[in-house]
């Protein structure tokens, strides 16, 4: 039997894969120059050291993690970025080469507009489909899962997604409602009965749409993934391996909606808890699986409804944190580095979330009191962020520089800090973004 790798070994294997990057054909990546190769390694190791908190990196790493900024900055509309994949990738490359962050996160934010059209995606409005061309796509929250459907979700989450949830959020996936129960496909006797749906027009229509959508997604990833490859050869790594979510947010964001989940906390708390438990292993699998597929260790976990003000402390401890903690630990177990993003303010949650294994996680901090975050969570985990959208939009380059300098001297003095924006932004003064990156390089060198 093959020897099982320990979590640390799995992670180290991913890091080694990133460091000795291969091209899509599996050959060693051809860098544009020896300098680019050297810079690539240094940048990866700078991040790795900052996250692991064992030794100080050569300097405080810096990155920019925007949503639509690279394209709005280039004068493109979001609509163009979503529909012209080649231009989307090209503009993103220019953005990275101009701002020179240590790592980038890829040109994935706009996504393939045509693909959403083919599948008639209802969960979001996007430019040309309910949103003006210059604005970002936005979520249409709703009760896509009905209150009486918890048992179906708990019993068979994947089946629920296929037969019920996906047809509701993708107009073109109506045929999925008719798909058979796959674990029922067992023996020769009667096996063909399970496949009757595939002969029916609604299912065939859905599959036709899927073929078309798949082809579109492939075309998109060709362009966007190409940008990752090209940037790597120029010395700029992308170490994002994928994303997953807190089970509470899975239900609260896209299944039951904010109001739905909050009413369920009172009306059917046990079902809600059970459903989150059922989703937990799936959310772990989602993160670990995509880290393995991409070869990159960092798994982004955007956190929404656990922020200050949404829930009471008791509710946070009962409903939000237990399954999120399991997801975080499960990702670590699977050799990933979870990157939970504390969107908004999380000051009241720090005492609860602080006891994570040391040097195994990376936390994005938005507007929380960074000194408090450092004293709690920051003892065990590297922090990234805290340059606010307000500052990037309305501050001066000098204010940004002062803020970054202060972060480095207080939070970053013993390591465990990566300079970055705190929240995803579509708009900013470019000179402020530049000031953020440059200040980290200027003030962040460890002696």
């Amino acid at each position, binding site marked *: 039997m093959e020897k099982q790798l320990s979590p640390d070994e799995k992670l180290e294997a991913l890091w080694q894969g990133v460091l000795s990057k291969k091209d899509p054909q599996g050959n060693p990546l051809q860098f544009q120059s020896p300098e680019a190769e050297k810079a690539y390694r240094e940048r990866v190791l700078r991040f790795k050291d900052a996250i692991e908190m064992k030794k100080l990196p050569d300097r405080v790493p810096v990155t920019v993690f925007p949503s639509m900024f690279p394209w709005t900055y280039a004068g493109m509309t979001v609509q163009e970025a979503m529909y012209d994949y080649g231009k989307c990738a090209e503009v993103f490359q220019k953005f990275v080469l101009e701002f020179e962050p240590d790592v980038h996160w890829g040109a994935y934010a706009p996504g393939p507009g045509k693909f959403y059209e083919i599948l008639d995606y209802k969960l979001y409005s996007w430019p040309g489909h309910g949103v*003006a061309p210059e604005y970002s796509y936005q979520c249409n929250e709703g009760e896509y899962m009905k209150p009486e459907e918890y048992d179906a979700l708990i019993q068979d989450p994947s089946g629920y997604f296929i037969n019920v949830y996906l047809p509701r959020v993708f107009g073109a996936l109506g045929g999925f409602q008719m798909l058979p129960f796959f674990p029922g496909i067992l023996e020769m006797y009667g096996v063909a009965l399970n496949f009757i749906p595939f002969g029916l027009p609604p299912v065939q229509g859905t599959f036709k749409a899927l073929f078309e959508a798949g082809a579109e997604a492939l075309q998109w990833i060709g362009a966007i993934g190409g940008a990752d490859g090209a940037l790597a050869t120029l010395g700029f790594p992308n170490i994002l391996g994928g994303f997953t979510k807190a089970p509470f947010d899975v239900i609260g964001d896209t299944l039951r909606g*904010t109001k739905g989940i909050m009413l369920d906390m009172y009306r059917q708390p046990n079902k809600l808890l059970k459903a989150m438990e059922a989703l937990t292993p799936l959310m772990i699998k989602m993160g670990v699986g995509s880290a393995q597929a991409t070869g990159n260790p960092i798994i982004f976990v955007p956190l929404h409804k656990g922020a200050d003000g949404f829930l*009471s402390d008791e509710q946070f401890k009962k409903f939000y944190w237990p399954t999120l903690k399991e997801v975080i630990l499960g990702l670590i177990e699977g050799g990933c580095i979870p990157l939970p993003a504390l969107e908004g303010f999380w000051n009241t949650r720090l005492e609860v979330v602080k006891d994570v294994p040391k040097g195994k996680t990376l936390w994005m901090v938005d507007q929380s009191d960074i000194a408090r975050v450092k004293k709690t969570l920051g003892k065990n985990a590297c922090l990234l962020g805290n340059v606010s959208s307000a500052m990037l939009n309305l501050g001066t380059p000098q204010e940004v520089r002062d803020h970054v300098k202060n972060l480095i001297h207080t939070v970053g003095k013993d390591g465990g800090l990566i300079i970055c924006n705190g929240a995803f932004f579509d*708009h900013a003064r470019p000179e402020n973004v530049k000031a953020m990156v440059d200040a980290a390089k200027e003030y962040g060198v460890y002696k």
Partner: protein
Amino acid sequence: MSKKLVNAIADMREEEALKLVREMVKGGSDPLQILDAAREAMTIVGRRYEEGTYFLPELMLAGELLSQITDIVKPELAKMPEVKRYGKVVIGTVKGDIHDIGKNIVSFMLDVNGFEVLDLGVDVSPQKFVEAIRDFQPQVVGLSGFLTLAFDTMKETVEAIQTAGLRDKVKIMIGGGQVTDKICEYTGADAYGKDAMAGVSLARKWLGVK
């Protein structure tokens, strides 16, 4: 009976509260008295939210309870009673932004705290705000926005109100996830509220409500 109902609502005992309402209606209680009890309970809910013992789940459930109770009582009333209102507020999510959860909560809290609220919904153009101010004549305008684009459209909206010659007729408050004092200054609004009760406090202050 009323006291029991007030407590059941304020303490989030939904089934008990609805049962009590049905019993009271059946027993011939004055429907106005039931609505008064519900309103009294909402004040308690608001206070607990302000004090930090209640959070969004309680506001959501309180809103549900209030509408369910109103639905039960409505057929018993010739017309809904006039409620004393302190003033009028126009509220909406600004152009380009379709986020509405925060806005809806502020709208609800203003309503149960005695303000007449005209909610214009999401993706509301500056022109629509201006028209609503002309027609509805509010004392307070609330601009909501979650995205960074909203900083500019809030500013545009405030400017449009100014250009229409209505700026001195209204106080403007803004709110949303990324909003800070700095954003407030940028947009030209009068103040920003960090949560729903802060919005209510601002409206109270501006209208001289104690």
